[in-house]
Structures are given as structure tokens and as C-alpha cells.
């Protein structure tokens, strides 16, 4: 048996067997920036809180207990379900879901419009979409607040045209939070869908029309399933950050629109100063997000099989 000449080795042969070593930077990166922080958070969530921030290294499930159970003001009553935080979570999921739906309803036609322009104007449209996002999110959210407040331009304009006779109180409502979330995350919906539609082969639509499908049927049975990966990616990219958002709810919403992001933020930065509880809330949020992604991944593999 003749040995293989090293000079004759192809590129893939040179790399073969070195996969582990070549992957090292990736693993280091993931370790430092993903595994370590999550691990730290998991550990903090089962430690004892110190007054005004910080932790004491004593194991306890008090943070999770506080999240789910109500033991009365002095902690000596029989436990009942604590609805406060579950309610905040539920409202956050609902708000984030709604924001995702709105982003999809506006984002899909927008992405479709851009992807069906001629190649040169496409980049112009994409650029226009991204321009506002060069400005800091905080500043954009504050500007939104000025736009929609009772004496802001929107109300002034509506009063001037006579559509309304009293200023609409938009600030501190769910609507304001929705507007903020929608505005903050719309491009995250548009861009992945744009990428999918741009690759879409329009002869598929012609084939569908040729086989007696009207435009609605073609959209439903051909276009949406084919560009689905882009839609799913867009929905995840909008839903996940909306769920943990705290700028829009803080600045545009009031006490009634309190969301997870603000709850967690308050535990670390604000008056509450309860690190283990904040960590526990973050862990629960992470579990929900992972759950959603897992269900999606499952559905994806089943769909391919």
C-alpha cells in the first residue's frame, strides 16, 4: 500500500482531523460571552440577596419562591399563587407578540416592495429603512414620546385638522408601548424577509398561476411557505428583544404597562436592588425564550422530514 504524498493533499485533507483545534476560538468566544454569563446568572438566582444590591453566598430558592408564591406580608401565611410577576410576564409576552404581529403585517409588504424593485433602487430603499437606526435607541424613544404627548405635534396636527376636538392621551398607554416596540424593531423584521424574498424564484408564482392558482392561493400555498425561514427569523428577531425591552415601556408606558425588562432592570439598577430576584426573573425569561425556539426547531425538523 502506497502512502499518500503530503504535497498532493487537497485543502480538505489538510484540514481533516484538525477540526477541533480550528474551532477553538469559537468555543472560547462562546464560553466567555455566552456560557459564563448565563452560568453566573443561574448561580446568582439561587443566592441570598444583600440589602441594596450584591449577594451573600448562601444557597436559597427564595428568589423563585418570591416570584411564584405569595406567603403574605410577613411570610408566615400558607402559600398561594403570586400573580403579580406572572401577570407582568404574561403582559410582556402578549405585548411582544402583538408587536411581532404588527411588524410582520407592515414588514412583509415593505420587504416585498423593496425586493421587487430593480437591483439598483433596492439598496437605496434598504438604506432609507436603516437610516433612523443610526440614532441611539434611547433618543429615538424619547423623540417618540415628544411626538405623541398631549401637546405634541401629532395631537396638534389632529386638532388643527379638526379630526379630534380634545387631545388624545396616547402617552402611558399600551398603544404607546406598542408604537415604541414596533418602531424599534421593524427593521429586524424587514431585513430577513427581504433576504428571503430576494432569493425567491418568481417563476414559481408563474407556475402556480399556470396551474390555476389565483394570487391569494399563490401567496398562501407557494410564496409564504417558500419564504417562511425569513419570516420566522424576522419574528424571532422582533419577539425576543421586545420581550425583554425596557426603554419603550419605561419611557412611553406607565405603571400599567410594566414589562419584564423593566422588572429586571429595577432589581439591578433601581430602588428594589434585589439581584437574586432579578437573576431568577431573567432565568425564567430565558427558559420561555428557549422553549419557543425549541418548539420552532422541532417544527422545522419535522417539516423537513
Amino acid at each position, binding site marked *: 500500500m502506497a502512502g499518500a504524498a503530503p504535497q498532493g493533499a487537497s485543502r480538505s485533507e489538510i484540514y481533516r482531523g484538525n477540526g477541533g483545534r480550528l474551532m477553538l476560538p469559537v468555543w472560547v468566544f462562546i464560553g466567555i460571552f455566552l456560557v459564563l454569563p448565563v452560568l453566573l446568572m443561574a448561580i446568582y438566582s439561587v443566592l441570598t440577596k444583600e440589602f441594596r444590591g450584591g449577594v451573600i453566598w448562601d444557597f436559597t430558592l427564595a428568589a423563585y419562591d418570591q416570584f411564584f408564591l405569595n406567603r403574605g406580608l410577613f411570610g408566615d401565611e400558607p402559600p398561594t399563587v403570586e400573580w403579580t410577576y406572572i401577570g407582568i410576564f404574561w403582559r410582556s409576552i402578549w405585548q411582544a407578540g402583538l408587536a411581532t404581529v404588527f411588524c410582520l403585517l407592515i414588514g412583509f409588504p415593505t420587504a416585498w416592495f423593496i425586493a421587487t424593485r430593480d437591483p439598483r433602487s433596492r439598496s437605496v430603499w434598504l438604506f432609507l429603512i436603516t437610516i433612523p437606526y443610526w440614532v441611539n435607541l434611547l433618543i429615538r424613544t424619547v423623540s417618540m414620546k415628544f411626538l405623541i404627548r398631549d401637546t405634541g405635534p401629532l395631537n396638534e396636527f389632529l386638532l388643527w385638522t379638526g379630526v379630534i376636538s380634545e387631545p388624545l392621551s396616547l402617552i402611558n398607554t399600551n398603544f404607546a408601548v406598542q408604537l415604541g416596540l414596533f418602531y424599534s424593531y421593524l427593521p429586524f423584521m424587514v431585513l430577513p424577509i427581504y433576504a428571503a424574498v430576494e432569493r425567491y424564484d418568481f*417563476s414559481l408564482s408563474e407556475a402556480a398561476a399556470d396551474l390555476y392558482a389565483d394570487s391569494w392561493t399563490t401567496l398562501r400555498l407557494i410564496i409564504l411557505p417558500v419564504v417562511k425561514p425569513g419570516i420566522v427569523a424576522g419574528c424571532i428577531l422582533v419577539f425576543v428583544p421586545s420581550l425583554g425591552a425596557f426603554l419603550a415601556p419605561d419611557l412611553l408606558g406607565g405603571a400599567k404597562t410594566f414589562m419584564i425588562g423593566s422588572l429586571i432592570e429595577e432589581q439591578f439598577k433601581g430602588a428594589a436592588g434585589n439581584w437574586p430576584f432579578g437573576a431568577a426573573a431573567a432565568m425564567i425569561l430565558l427558559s420561555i425564550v428557549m422553549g419557543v425556539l425549541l418548539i420552532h426547531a422541532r417544527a422545522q425538523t419535522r417539516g423537513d422530514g
Partner: protein
Amino acid sequence: MNQHSIAVDVDKVVKRYGSVTALHGVSMDIREGEFFTLLGPSGCGKTTLLRCIAGFEDVSEGSIRLHGEDIAPLPPHKRPVNTVFQQYALFPHMTVLENVAFGLLRRGWSAMDANGRAREVLALVQLSDFARRSPGQLSGGQQQRVALARALAPGPQVLLLDEPLSALDLKLRQAVRVELKQIQRETGIAFVFVTHDQEEALTMSDRIAVMSAGHVQQIGTPREIYEAPVNRFVADFIGETNLLEVEVGSVSDGMADIALPGGARLTCPAADGAQRGTGHLSIRPERITPAPAGAGSLQATVEDHVYLGTDIQLHMRLSDGEAMVVRMQNAAAAGIPERGTVLGLEVEAGAARLLAD
């Protein structure tokens, strides 16, 4: 009623894209059950015409009638024609069976009937074993047959095929040609087949429409197109030919009296519209017989030869400088003429044809 036997009646169709005109008043009748080919170089308007019949393009002027009914107001999804697309356009997220059943379900078939019919058609294209596969798992030839099955399944009145073989390699293309022709005969559906490949057109078609620059140049059977081309474009595009500039003495009753280069006279068939004066004569290379020098109606010098196995191609030059190609059969007795040899060329009267330019 003769009307009954015409499947597609294309009447003076004009198609403009802004200032560009792709079709200049194209007319043709495509008969029931025939294999009709639109042949021409790229950009000649053949695909545009097919897309007008399918409904993907609106005609600017003129009309297209399907069994006598004007289909201009019908959107593509209401026209009883189906298309085999050049790149197949199979639905990637559906199985082969779902692809084939798609058109049937849209026409209101029940799922069970549609699947039954889809399996029947898959059997016709010999893909029964692949019903559950996804198109991405199939070879190019198999995908091509799925596209054919999908278009045939709803039983269209006319099947439109847009260069369906161009994505296949040569060997496969030749096999599929025979298969496609067989399926056309079995189903009895009129096929409108678009191609730029003249060999494909000659071997498969009942009739061919040769197109160029948005005009129909000639419509006829493969034999008519090859043996009786009307003009220089058709003669040159279909097969090989020698085009000689000749002096036309007179034309009458479809026959012309011609003076060949070198002075010999020839009486040969003339295309409609051929006139006196300077004209072009088409002589197919295989219809010229080499003879000893001095004999025959043309004298030419051998410049080179190409050995093709069954044939030998001689590149020759006439005394006035015009090039001629002659094909002689590779018979055992005949040797290959040396370079520089002067030969006489015999042109049978029926082999040459005066063109209408």
C-alpha cells in the same frame, strides 16, 4: 367546420415593451394534436409568444384564440393551458406527488381523485417510485419529467414547453426527445414547443415556425423548412447550406433560370417572391456531387477537408473567390481529394433553390 381542428389561432399579435417591439404582427394556426415548434435564435420573440399564450404577458395588438375563443381577457390561472418551464419551477417545499396534484386540486378535484390522477401521470413519465421525494432530491432529467407530469396532469387543451430540454446534457436530451414525442402522441394534446436548437425542432416537430427578430420567417413541416426554405435566414439557420450570389434570368411558375458563377446555367425551383436580378441560391452541402475537373456546373479548388466519420466535408473555393462546403459520403472506394485539386461540382436541378432573400 375547419375552425374545429385549430387549437390555437394567433392573429397578428404585436407585443411591445416600451419602445422595443418584441413581436411584429405574428400570425399562425396551431392545429389540434400537433407537435408545433417555435424555432429561432435567442431574442427572436419565440418565448414572448409562448408567454402571451400562457397569459404571463398581455398582447399589445392582435388576438390569440383558443378553440375559437379569445383568451385575452383571461388571467393565466383561468386559461386551460399548462406550461413546462425552462428551469422547471418545481415547488421546492412540496413532494413530487404534491407538485403534480397541485393543478388538479386548484381545479376542485378531491384530494383522493387528484392523488390518483397524479400517480397515473407519474407512471406515464416513469416516476412512480419518486412520488414521495422532494424535487431537490431528483436529478435534472427527473425534475424535467416531474415538470412535464405536473403540466400534463390537469389535461390542458394545449401544452406549452419553454426550452424544456436546454438544462439537460446532450445524451439525456436525445433520449428525452424521443420520450417527449411519444407522450405527445399518446396524449394527443397539442404541444407548443420553444427551442433554439434546430436539430431538436427537426426531429420532434410536426410543423415548425421559424422566427427571427419578432417576425415569422416560415411555417412548415421539418422537410419543407429544410428543403424549401423561403429566405436566406431560414436556409442559413436550419442546417448547413451554401449561399451563392447568382444572376437570375427569369422566374416563372416557381422555376427560375439562373446563371451560376463561372457561367453555367441552371433551372431550379424558386421560393415565392424570388425576383429577377441578383439573387441568392441555396445548395445543401450533401446535395452536391464532386466530379472530375471540367464536368459539372461549377469548378472549385479543394482547400481543406474535415473527416467526420460517416461523411467527409470538403471546404472548397470557386474561381470567383466564393467559399463552398461539400459533403461526400465516406464510401470505401472514393479516396479523399488532395488539397489544391480542382474538381467539378454537379448540382442537381432539384437540390438548388432560389431564395426570396
